[in-house]
């Protein structure tokens, strides 16, 4: 094989091109669903813009796959703006995506609450407005690990982003108007909370080095989705103990009403196999019932990741009839598909 060898445990050609090459592969695999606009570096739903339908776009750094590109398609996103790995995309991408999906009914921007994402989407929304496109931006901030206070940039947007994209996507597909679709994103964000833990760091292709060193037998509690360390480090206990921490953190903050029906989303960070994710789900399900809520819907798998980080996050969404109906509505994207 090559003389000049790749020192990462990764399949890459040029670290500077990994995002572009991956997007090209995504489009090659799903031509029936989406296209890749390489010039603008955006993934666009094949049949966009749909006249009269509210456009739904999101975006953020890459390295969280399938988020966001893998959620472009029927009943979910109309376009995704992927930045470099763990780096917010730029306003030009968001503006191009906004124009590509505007069917005259306006466009909703789903923005994860990171300073970079927020600032870049803000500049993009201003430019879009200058160009006469109605844009409504909603910030997702569901991570209970971060106190929302004057002393932080506010809570991070994590797992609830996936749920908001699915649910608001269903609303948009049902021809809800601009304010209804953005209200739906807000509603999901208000009724969802998340908490994540890591058992390893991950290696961004650009640096080729782990973002931090986590010795075996240790766990990072309260991580985000950028391979960053968490709020604190502890010694790793049993899965039951870890799930106790996750459920307690989420439920004590969400404060669902007794007997509430919830959606439980057990998400893998990329390097934790399904064998363990289902083991975790089994524990989560028991503990949620013990906490007096009823998991009537669930999602188990690696949907919002930090490259190959070993870890998991729990998101709990308090459902109502409307949200349940939108969740169950047909979706057809590379990463989520049902009802069609």
């Amino acid at each position, binding site marked *: 094989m090559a003389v000049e060898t790749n020192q990462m445990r990764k399949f890459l050609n040029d670290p500077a091109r990994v995002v572009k090459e991956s997007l090209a592969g995504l489009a090659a695999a799903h031509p029936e669903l989406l296209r890749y606009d390489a010039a603008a570096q955006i993934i666009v739903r094949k049949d966009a813009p749909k006249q009269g339908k509210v456009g739904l776009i999101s975006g953020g750094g890459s390295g969280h796959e399938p988020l966001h590109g893998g959620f472009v398609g029927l009943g979910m996103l109309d376009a995704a703006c992927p930045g470099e790995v763990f780096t917010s995309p730029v306003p030009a991408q968001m503006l191009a995506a906004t124009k590509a999906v505007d069917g005259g009914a306006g466009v909703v921007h789903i923005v994860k609450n990171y300073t970079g994402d927020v600032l870049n989407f803000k500049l993009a929304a201003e430019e879009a407005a200058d160009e006469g496109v109605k844009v409504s931006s909603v910030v997702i901030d569901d991570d209970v690990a971060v106190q929302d206070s004057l002393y932080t940039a506010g809570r991070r947007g994590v797992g609830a982003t996936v749920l908001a994209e699915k649910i608001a996507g269903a609303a948009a597909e049902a021809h809800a108007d601009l304010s209804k679709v953005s209200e739906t994103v807000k509603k999901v964000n208000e009724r969802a909370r998340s908490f994540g833990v890591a058992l390893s760091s991950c290696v961004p292709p650009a640096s080729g080095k782990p*973002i931090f060193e986590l010795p075996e037998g240790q766990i990072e509690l309260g991580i985000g989705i950028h391979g960053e360390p968490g709020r604190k480090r502890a010694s790793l206990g049993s899965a039951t103990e870890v799930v106790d921490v996750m459920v307690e953190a989420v439920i004590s903050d969400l404060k669902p009403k007794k007997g509430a029906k919830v959606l439980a989303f057990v998400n893998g960070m990329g390097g934790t196999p399904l064998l363990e994710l289902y083991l975790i789900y089994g524990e989560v399900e028991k503990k949620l019932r013990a906490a007096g809520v009823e998991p009537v819907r669930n999602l188990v798998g690696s949907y919002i990741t930090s490259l190959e980080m070993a870890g998991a996050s729990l998101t709990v969404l308090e459902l109502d009839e409307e949200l349940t109906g939108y969740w169950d509505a047909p979706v057809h994207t590379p990463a989520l598909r049902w009802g069609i």
Partner: protein
Amino acid sequence: MISERVMDAATITSWMREIDAVMRAERDHLVQLDAAIGDGDHGTNMVRGFEAVVQALDADAGAPPGKLLVLAGRTLVSTVGGASGPLWGSALRSGGRLLGDSSTFEGPQLVEVLGAALASIKDLGTAAVGDKTMVDALEPAVETLRSQLREGTPLDQALDQAAAAAEAGMRATIPLQARKGRASYLGERSVGHQDPGATSTALIIRALQKAVGEGS
């Protein structure tokens, strides 16, 4: 009198070139700083941005300094991403707008340019000194330059002191707990680390001093 040193488009171009050079040189250091309390991309972000700025300026030679600054800002916004892109991008854009079409400028206007840059960073990012951000390096630099020039210090000495003030502000971020940006997610764990954005900002001011010095 040196303090009447007149600057022009060439000053802006060489400033951007100096920044490009120093960001490449400091890239890994900035990555390490960001890996400790952020997400490890600040070095690559700044390199990607200022490489593009230098290319853009080469393409647009002959334009007045204000236009070059606006172009540099737009280029940062459209290539960097992350928090630093919009922040430094808007900063250079508003600094540039202030110069309008005039083909030259002097110390007092340079102060206004940097003041406008600082103002737009604070406006967009809502950070104040002490939040452990680039503001901790930029604000003291601007104030030092303003006061030094008011006292009649020659421009390049004043810039040298401004850069020193930025470096002091950069070091002063080490004991702070971050209140803005990713580092704030770490809570107390952000204490004891130097802020990457404050570090690149100190490099940017030092590069300005070099660029102005060369020209004289």
